[in-house]
């Protein structure tokens, strides 16, 4: 399904490692050749891992990946056209250290914000796509994140396009205070207007999707998918443990748990994601369009 030249668009792996998300998901600094899988503890060849969409070939553990990588493995080559890439947050509330944190996030992620939005084709079906990036302040939702997602939905509504959102987020960005909270309402409004026009919205929850993003657009899809074992919840596990003063069951808040409780439609592995999205998009296209 995936031609090898898709991978030519990936950032070189050393650069990926430098981006911080690699380090963040991986407690051991990988050497040039080998990476230890945090789930099964097997040593994996870095190049094998890259060839396998950063999924452990031994146990199926899905490593966190950044937004550009995600786009490259999801959309047709050369079809992604980014929107609003130049938008970036400023320290609206003069919050201590926030300006430096923003600067650091930009350098380590090579992005201007925690979400990348644009249009693309998936097996020739045109869609708006928004992909969040955990290497930018843990995918936290600031005003620009909300603004970009809102603009993407407004564009899709205007142009009668479906929207796919890949969510990954630690929640609202507290350094932007109440204005980050307001993005939950703002994005939800844009989702509703898109929905009321009879247009399709698919969300894909990836590890981790929590907080204000879970409590807004991530849970508002017509169809909600998730990557295997992704942490999905409103409150983070540590907050819950502190509140109830007891340990949580082992698989609590995993994608599989949330599926069983009835809050997502399906768990889809990374290698099947493009095909699944493509089929779902085509099921919602009017006959004769293709």
């Amino acid at each position, binding site marked *: 399904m995936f031609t090898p030249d898709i991978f030519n668009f990936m950032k070189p792996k050393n650069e990926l490692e430098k981006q911080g998300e690699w380090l963040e998901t991986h407690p051991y600094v990988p050497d040039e050749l080998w990476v230890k899988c945090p789930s099964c503890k097997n040593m994996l060849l870095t190049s094998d891992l890259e060839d396998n969409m950063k999924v452990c070939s031994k146990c199926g553990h899905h490593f966190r990946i950044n937004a550009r990588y995600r786009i490259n493995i999801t959309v047709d080559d050369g079809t992604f056209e980014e929107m609003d890439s130049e938008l970036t947050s400023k320290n609206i509330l003069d919050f201590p250290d926030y300006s430096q944190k923003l600067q650091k996030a930009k350098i380590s992620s090579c992005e201007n914000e925690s979400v990348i939005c644009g249009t693309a084709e998936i097996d020739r079906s045109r869609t708006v796509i928004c992909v969040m990036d955990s290497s930018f302040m843990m995918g936290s939702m600031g005003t620009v994140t*909300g603004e970009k997602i809102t603009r993407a939905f407004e564009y899709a509504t205007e142009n009668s396009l479906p929207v796919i959102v890949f969510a990954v987020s630690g929640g609202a960005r507290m350094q932007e205070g109440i204005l980050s909270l307001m993005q939950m309402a703002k994005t939800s409004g844009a989702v509703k207007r898109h929905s009321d026009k009879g247009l399709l919205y698919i969300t894909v929850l990836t590890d981790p999707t929590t907080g204000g993003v879970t409590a807004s657009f991530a849970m508002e899809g017509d169809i909600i998918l998730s990557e295997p074992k992704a942490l999905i919840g409103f409150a983070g596990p540590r907050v*819950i443990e502190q509140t109830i003063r007891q340990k949580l069951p082992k698989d609590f808040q995993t994608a599989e748990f949330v599926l069983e409780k009835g809050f997502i439609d399906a768990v889809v592995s990374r290698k099947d994601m493009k095909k699944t999205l493509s089929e779902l998009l085509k099921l919602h296209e009017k006959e004769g369009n293709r």
Partner: protein
Amino acid sequence: MSAIDRVNAARANNRPTSIDYITKIFGDSFFELHGDRRFGDDKAIVSGIARLNGLPVTVIGIEKGRNLNERMERNFGMAHPEGYRKALRLMKQAEKFRRPVICFVDTSGAYCGIGAEERGQGQAIAENLMEMMTLKTPILSILIGEGGSGGALALAVADEVWMLENAVYSVISPEGCASILWKDAAKTAEASECLKMTSQDLFSLGVIERIIREPKDLDSKLFDGLKNLISQTVRKKLEQPVDTLLDNRYNRFRRLGQDFVTQDDAPTDTE
């Protein structure tokens, strides 16, 4: 008053709760309606129908409880998903009968627990945000004490949002903020300043329409004044064509957080 003083005032045990507001403003006309028709009846949310100077209205309040027993019964005003779903059920009912919805918000946040997660706390809040944005009847939300993050917002997607002078509204508690950012709970006072969570801050940021001045002790003067203010406001909103009402509601939130820069002009930004 410093921000932390406001936080403490907003949380004070003797502060009137939603039930006090409902009793003082709607009196005997309030008829409580229970349950979400899905799972159960969340006592952290008090809701029903009432008359406001003759006009039928739907009233929804987050209730913290007025003494220890009540607080336990009400889960300290921390709602579960079924609470938000009960609220949405009543809002849909209000839409059907074109009754204005009046929400009283007072919560440290949506409950964080096993049951709440199992029953989709995130989904319940998300659905409220989405549905409230296009609910075809006026909505007015008043923050009377604590406005804790998504759990408060789930009842505050409204045509107008008001705050009591000493109410607070924030994306995270100052304690949570201090412990995450500085690993130091002692910095709570500092965090409450940084978060810009007082009524004055929120008014300046354009997040609320009105600050309700608090008399020395919250007495009948406040409630009478508030009653008339609510009545006038919802009657005015009822006269608006629904499309105008909903466009205004959408734009009310749409304009929040436009204060960003583009990468190109970032270094020379002169604002």
